[in-house]
Each structure stands twice: as structure tokens, then as C-alpha cells.
């Protein structure tokens, strides 16, 4: 009883925090937890009352069961390769003194901010059966469609995520440890094996789980590259758009969500606890030891090869946008750009509006969320922390379908409005805003806030006069991340678009699937220009104050 009273008292003592807390909670309850619950309810409802008939039906349908195993298989192999590439990239750019590091980082950032299925589209154009390189230059047709093509594409698409995590981890490994090992007589291979690798293993696990969650949830690349290799994401899509069977789609989503949820839990409560980042004290002034020539140039060659492929990917998008007929006639034409204007311009305008809205909302909510969770010792903050990070683990198409199921009927009817798309994006990008907020909060010494409180300021005043001004850069970072993600997202919004509220990314995917590569490339190029432009403008305006992608 006394605990309850204490809790209530704690809430009443600080109305600002309590108010924010309630708003955040309510928001996540309605726009995140309710759609998830709706998925479970929809899948567990039979013709008469609750039943598991849809699940038994799923088990009886071989195609669907196959797609589940295919998804797991693809996630496993892509995660292994993407994490390996990400690790090598991160190791090379943080701990090896090789030329061209800035270029390699730029390449990774480009990959991070572009449409998630750019690689799929350009791989068909470059390395497909009639690809510019495989067929045009090398003269040998290469079979890109299938699981192996998808594997390569997913590796290239998601290794930057692993890279980001690994850079953070590798940077935090104190070079002094390496010096110590060397002084004790260890060679460079020995140091790598016994010092660097063990220290980075938790980071590797963390990166791998992040990649796995993203591969499982990806929709665009399998749709373009997989051929007859069906995965859960494409099958769930097919259930809805082809069969109109929302319940079976919900079943597929729930079955996929189970492993993802386990991975998320493992990442959040097990792997991240094992990170050795916190053990390091003050940063050392020691320079990273020079690595051997062989290691240096091997890694340089590796990074160059990967970067070359990525450069080719974007070159093919640019070329494809203006080449008359890809694979046949490469003469210049502005036709593709003209073709996409009627539908493309309003769609891009919609995307900009949605991205601005959800960018601001994510940045504000993210910073407030981080402040409450990390600075206020309110009871129940762990729950808020959990539900603010969980959307990152929910596959996009799952939340898209969940939104249709929940906001299609009263009390809250939102389907076919702009709100449903904006809210969906806010929820899905909240974890990025939240992470940016946490990063910002941790850089502000708590003693400044304590000083403010000691001088008599309440929570609201402290928030306004101390926290907000100091967190401007965190706010900016959260905004940019969410903006970019919203501009390029496809897997959730593909279920929410209407003639009135159409978006460029589903249009591009449709064009690419239709075989209209030139037009797809043209609209991709427009979208990519806007996103890169935003990033460049942000750099010019804010300079180094906003830390983006921490590289």
C-alpha cells in the first residue's frame, strides 16, 4: 500500500514530468501497442469466437511455411555476411592508417540514407541477366534472381548498420590495451585475436541482431530480386494485396515477430549489458599503432572493392534515369523524368510534408522521452524505455497491416488520411529520435540540472532553460534521422497509401517491379537528391554541431 502512495506522491510532486509521461505513454499505447494487439486478435479469431484455426491453416500451407524458413535462412546468412563486412569496414576506418577513409565513410553514409531497395533495383540493371556489367561488358548472362542474388543485395544494403555499431565499439577500445599487449611481446595478429576481437564481440552481437531484425523486415529487395524465393514479408504482402486475407497476413506477421522479438530482447537486455564501453576511463592521447603493410593494403583493397560496387550502384541510378532504354540503347533522354512528373511531383510533395511532420515529432518526443527516462527517477520508466525502443524491432509491414486493422473502424478511424501515414512514421522512427535524445542527454552533465534545481527551478523551468538549449544538437540529429527514414520508407506505408496520399517510394517499387527501370531510376534520383541535399544543407548550416552518423 505504502508503495502505491509513494508512487502517487512521486507523480504528483512533479506535474510536468507526470504530464509528459502520460502523453508519451498514451501515444504509444494508442499508436503502437494497440495495432500490435490488433494483429494478435485478428489472427486468433475464427469464424465463431477465438480459435487458432488460422495458425493451423498456416501450417497446412506449404508455400507459407517455406517462406518462413526462407526468411530465417536469409536472415542468418545475410546477417553473417553483413556483420563481417561491417566489422572489417569499421576496423579499417578506425584502427588502420590507410588512405581514403573519408571517402569510405561517405560511401557508407550514402548507403544509409538511400532507398532501402536501391541496391535491388540497380543490381538487376548492373548484374542481372542483361546487366550492364555482366552482360554488356563481360558478355556472360548471370542469374541474379534467387536467394543468392538476394543474399548479396541484403549484405550490401545492411552492412552500414553493422558498421555504425562497430565504429562506436571499436573507437571505445582503448589503444593503451593494445600498447600493453605489444609491450608484452605480442604480434599484431596476436593483439587482434586476444585483445581487439574479444573486446568487440558484444558489439558484433549487437550489430548482428540489428542487421537480422532489418533483413527479416525488409520488403523491397525480396520483391525485386528474390524471383521465386518467397519470404514472409513478400508473402504477407501477397496475402493482403492478392487474396485480401488480412487474418492470414496477421498470422504471418506474428510468426515472424516472434524470432524478431526474441532477438530484440536478447540485444536489449543481454548483449548490450556485456558491452565493455563503460570500463574505459578518460580518453587516451595514444595514437593507434601503425598496422602492418599486408593488413593495411588488404583491408584497403577490400574497402575499395565494396565502395566501388556501391559507387556503381548510384552511377547506374543516375545513368538509368537518363538512358533511353536500359540494356538496348544508352542515348540520353529526359523522357523518364517527364513520365514520372504527373504522379511523382505530388508524391514527393506528400513525402516532404510527412517527413517534416514526423521528423519534428520524433525529435521532440525523442528528447523528452530520453529526458524522462534518464533523468527522472519516476517509477515505470523502464516500461517507457522498452516501448520507445521496441518499434525499431517491429518489421515495417507488420505495423502497416496493424494500422489498417486498428484504425479502419471506430472509435478511431484514420485510414485513407494523411494522419495515419504520419503517425505510423512517428512511431516507427521514435527509436531513432529517442537514441539521439539519449546520446544528447548523456553528454550534458547532470550537475548542471542539479544546479538549476538547487537554485529553485522546477522541472519545467529546468527543461526550458537548461535541457532544451543544451540538447539542440540532439534535437537536430533526431530530426534529420527521422526525416531521412520517413522519406525513404516503403514497407509500412505501402499498405497505407491512397490515390490522394501517394508516396514516391511505393511508386518506385511498383515501377521497378513493372520493368520500368528508367522511370524508377528517375524518381529514385529525384528522391535521393532531396535527401542528400537535406544532409548537405544541414551540414552547411549546423556545421559540426550536429553529430550525424557518428563518423
Amino acid at each position, binding site marked *: 500500500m505504502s508503495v502505491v502512495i509513494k508512487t502517487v506522491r512521486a507523480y504528483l510532486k512533479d*506535474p*510536468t514530468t507526470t*504530464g509528459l509521461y502520460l502523453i508519451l505513454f498514451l501515444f504509444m499505447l494508442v499508436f503502437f501497442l494497440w495495432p500490435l494487439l490488433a494483429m494478435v486478435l485478428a489472427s486468433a479469431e475464427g469464424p465463431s469466437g477465438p480459435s487458432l484455426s488460422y495458425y493451423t491453416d498456416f501450417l497446412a*500451407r*506449404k*508455400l507459407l511455411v*517455406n517462406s518462413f524458413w526462407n526468411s530465417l535462412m536469409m536472415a542468418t546468412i545475410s546477417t553473417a555476411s553483413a556483420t563481417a563486412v561491417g566489422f572489417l569496414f569499421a576496423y579499417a576506418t578506425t584502427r588502420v592508417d590507410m588512405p581514403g577513409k573519408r571517402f569510405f565513410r561517405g560511401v557508407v553514409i550514402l548507403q544509409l540514407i538511400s532507398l532501402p531497395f536501391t541496391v535491388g533495383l540497380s543490381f538487376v540493371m548492373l548484374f*542481372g*541477366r*542483361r546487366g550492364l556489367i555482366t*552482360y554488356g561488358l563481360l558478355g556472360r548472362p548471370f542469374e541474379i*534472381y534467387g536467394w543468392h542474388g538476394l543474399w548479396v543485395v541484403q549484405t550490401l544494403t545492411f552492412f552500414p548498420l553493422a558498421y555504425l555499431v562497430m565504429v562506436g565499439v571499436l573507437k571505445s577500445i582503448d589503444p593503451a590495451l593494445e600498447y600493453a599487449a605489444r609491450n608484452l611481446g605480442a604480434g599484431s595478429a596476436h593483439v587482434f585475436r586476444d585483445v581487439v576481437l574479444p573486446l568487440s564481440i558484444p558489439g558484433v552481437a549487437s550489430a548482428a541482431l540489428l542487421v537480422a531484425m532489418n533483413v527479416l523486415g525488409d520488403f523491397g529487395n525480396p*520483391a525485386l530480386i528474390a*524471383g*521465386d524465393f518467397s519470404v514472409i514479408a513478400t508473402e504477407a504482402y*501477397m496475402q*493482403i*494485396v*492478392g*487474396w*485480401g486475407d*488480412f487474418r492470414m497476413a496477421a498470422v504471418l506477421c506474428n510468426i515472424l515477430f516472434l524470432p524478431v522479438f526474441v532477438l530484440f530482447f536478447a540485444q536489449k537486455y543481454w548483449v548490450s549489458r556485456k558491452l565493455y564501453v563503460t570500463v574505459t576511463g578518460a580518453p587516451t592521447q595514444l595514437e593507434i599503432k601503425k598496422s602492418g603493410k599486408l593488413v593495411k593494403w588488404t583491408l584497403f583493397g577490400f574497402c575499395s572493392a565494396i565502395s566501388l560496387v556501391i559507387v556503381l550502384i548510384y552511377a547506374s541510378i543516375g545513368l538509368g534515369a537518363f538512358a533511353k*532504354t*536500359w*540494356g*538496348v*540503347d544508352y542515348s540520353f533522354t529526359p523522357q523518364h523524368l517527364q*513520365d514520372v512528373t*504527373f*504522379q511523382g511531383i*505530388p508524391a514527393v510533395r506528400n513525402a516532404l510534408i510527412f517527413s517534416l511532420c514526423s521528423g519534428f515529432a520524433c525529435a521532440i518526443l525523442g528528447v523528452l522521452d530520453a529526458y524522462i527516462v534518464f533523468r527522472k527517477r519516476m517509477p515505470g520508466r523502464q516500461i517507457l524505455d522498452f516501448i520507445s525502443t521496441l518499434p525499431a524491432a517491429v518489421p515495417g509491414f507488420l505495423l502497416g497491416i496493424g494500422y*489498417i486493422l486498428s484504425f*479502419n473502424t*471506430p472509435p*478511431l*478511424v*484514420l*485510414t*485513407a*488520411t494523411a*494522419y495515419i501515414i504520419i503517425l505510423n512514421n512517428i512511431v516507427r522512427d521514435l527509436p531513432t529520435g529517442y537514441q539521439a535524445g539519449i546520446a544528447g542527454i548523456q553528454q550534458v552533465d547532470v550537475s548542471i540540472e542539479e544546479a538549476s534545481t538547487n537554485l*529553485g*527551478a*522546477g*522541472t*519545467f*523551468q529546468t527543461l526550458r532553460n537548461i535541457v532544451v538549449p543544451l540538447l539542440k544538437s540532439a534535437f537536430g540529429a533526431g530530426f534529420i534521422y527521422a526525416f531521412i527514414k520517413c522519406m525513404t520508407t516503403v514497407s509500412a506505408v505501402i499498405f497505407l*497509401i*491512397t*490515390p*490522394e496520399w*501517394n508516396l514516391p517510394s511505393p*511508386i518506385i517499387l*511498383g515501377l521497378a*517491379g*513493372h*520493368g*520500368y*527501370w528508367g*522511370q524508377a531510376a528517375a524518381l529514385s534520383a529525384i528522391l535521393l537528391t532531396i535527401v542528400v541535399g537535406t544532409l548537405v544543407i544541414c551540414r552547411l548550416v549546423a556545421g559540426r554541431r550536429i553529430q550525424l552518423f557518428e563518423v
Partner: protein
Amino acid sequence: MESLISVGDAIHRSEDTNVKILREAKAVAKTTSILIVVAIVVVAALGGAAYYSSIPTAPTVTTPTVTKPPKPTGPLMVYSALHEFEIGRICSAFAEETGIETKFLRASAGELSARVEAESKKPIGDVVLGGPCLNHENMKTKGLLLQYKSPTATEIDAKFHDKDNYWYGFYLGAIGFCVNTGRLTTLKFAEPKSWKDLLNQTYKGEIVSSNPATSGTAQTIFATMLQLYGWDAGWEYLKALHKNVHHYERAGAAPAQRVGAGEFAIGLAFGHDIQKIIVGGYPVKLIFPEEGTGSEIGGLAIIKDGPNPAAAKAFVDWMLGKKAGQLHTDISLRVSTRKDVALPLGAVPLEKIKLMNYDYKWAADNMSRILKEWEKVVAG
């Protein structure tokens, strides 16, 4: 002295506390007011959203007492299975002529009928433009379409329309083989002449088709085979064909595009989609199978309880007219159901094709059964 200091301290302290309490109270008041404002904004936004999204179901346009119907205004929401750029051209022409703002969403025919069904409680689209009429027939059976007698429809042969005026046919098409002659020559394969030829093992991995769960084209192909050979023999054929098919595309015209680009040797698609590739300058040949082939009537229908029925009716009247018919045929090479629409260079008149006696009604009635059976075939 010591006590004095402590008393002074105490006074100071209490003053401090008072100030603190005052400030806290101010902050609380401020916060509360801000929270209330935020709450009001949120509630208003959500309420507004709910209100606006509920509008479509309200019958705002139908006022039976008015003798002269008001001039329809936009926006009109078009769901269409035609090609992206064709829809764009048609919609902008309609908007220009009538002043009705027009927006569209492209999806394959099977996807559209699933979508219209899913949205039936609160329809978002106004009309379904294009796609084989077996989908329109399906939607009619499920009660998803609006019955409407278009005055322009009398200018077209009644056999191309639904007898109850739920949908109208505005173009015709026949299934053919899209063959990349260059690729066949390099592979040293013979041209397929008939449905039977497609089962030839040399074509393994060289045939691309479309997915009947999404594509109206694929639905027509499947129904054609099942009608040509009968249910059991038809499935035997489709199973054997499946071994040669590389993969199934979501969109019915995509196989023609892929074959045009030279990725595959043979694609199954509607003749007009193949003709478009040929006119586009690709080394492709259109072959109609010897046994006879299935055909479609491209349908146009109004969605029941759509947001803008007045504009939808205006669109149907306009689309069935000569001017729109000519525009559509010119950009798409599809044969119009109107006799007075001239065929552009490259289009194939249907009289020159050996057509089988294809029954779209049977296809519509049996489609869900066909899809279930097909999933088993694909799963192996």
C-alpha cells in the same frame, strides 16, 4: 551571536523555500495550461481526422429533389490497373476537359479487387479503370459496385457490357507470347508456336509469367488453360508449365518488359502490352498460340458508396466516349470496344487472332478455387 546567525539563516532559508514554492506553483500552472492546450490540439486533430475520414460515407452528393444535377467537382479517386503513364495521361486529359481534379493509384487488377473489398466499409476509390472484367464481375457479385446506366454506353455494342450495368467494357485484349528473337537466336531455340510448345524442356527458366493472386493477366491465362483443356488436364498443363517458368511477376505487363530487355526469352502477356514493347524498339515478336487464346474485356466500373459518385459518373460517361477511347487506344495500343476508334499503327485487330470461346463469368466464379489450387502447385 551564534543563535542570531542561525535565526537569520532560518529566515533566509524560509524565504528561499517560499520563492521556490512560488516558482513551482507558477511552473505548475504554466505546465498545466500547456498540457491542456496540447491535449486540446491532439483531441481536435484526432476528432478532425475522424470527422473528415467519415465524410465519404455520408451521402452528401445525392440530393434526389434537385431536378438538375449539380456540376460534379473534384477530387476524383481513380483505381487503375493500366500502365502508370497511361493512367496519368487519361487522368490529366479528363481533369483538363471537365475541371475535375483527378488522382490515381496503380495496382494490378487482382490487387485492386482485393483492395476495394477490404475498403468496402469505407470506400476510398471512386472508379476501377481497366483490368480484365472477370475482376469487375467478381466485385459485382460481392456487391461492391454501383449500378449506373451511362448514356454514352449505348454507342458501344451491348455484348461488351455487364447486362445489369454494373460495369462497362472499354477495350479488348488477347493473350499472346512475347518472344525475344535475339535471345532465342543466341540460345538456338525454336520459336514457340502453340501452348503445347511452351512445355518443351529447352525453355526451362526462360519463360516468365505473372502471378494470378495479383495480376488479371495471369488470371486470364490460367482460366484460358483450364477452359481449353478442362479442369484436370488444365492443371496437368499448368503444373508442367510451372517447371519451365522462371518466376511469376506481380504485374501482368511486366513479363513483356522483361523479355523486351532481353532478360528472358518468352513472356506471357496481353498482346497490346507486347505490341507496346515492339513499338518501343525492342527486338521482340508477338505470337498468338495455334490452339486459340483467351481474351479479355477491359472493364470500367463505379465503386459503391465511393466518396465522389457524381464525378465518378462523369468519368465513366467521358471514358466511354469517342475522344477518350481514341486517346486510350493511341497511347496503349489496346483495341477499343468502340467501332469508331481507329487502330493506331502497331495494334492488332482482334479479327486476325484465333480466339477460343473464353468465358469470363466462369473465370470470375472459379477464381478463388483456382488460386487455392495454384498455391499447391507452386509449393511443389
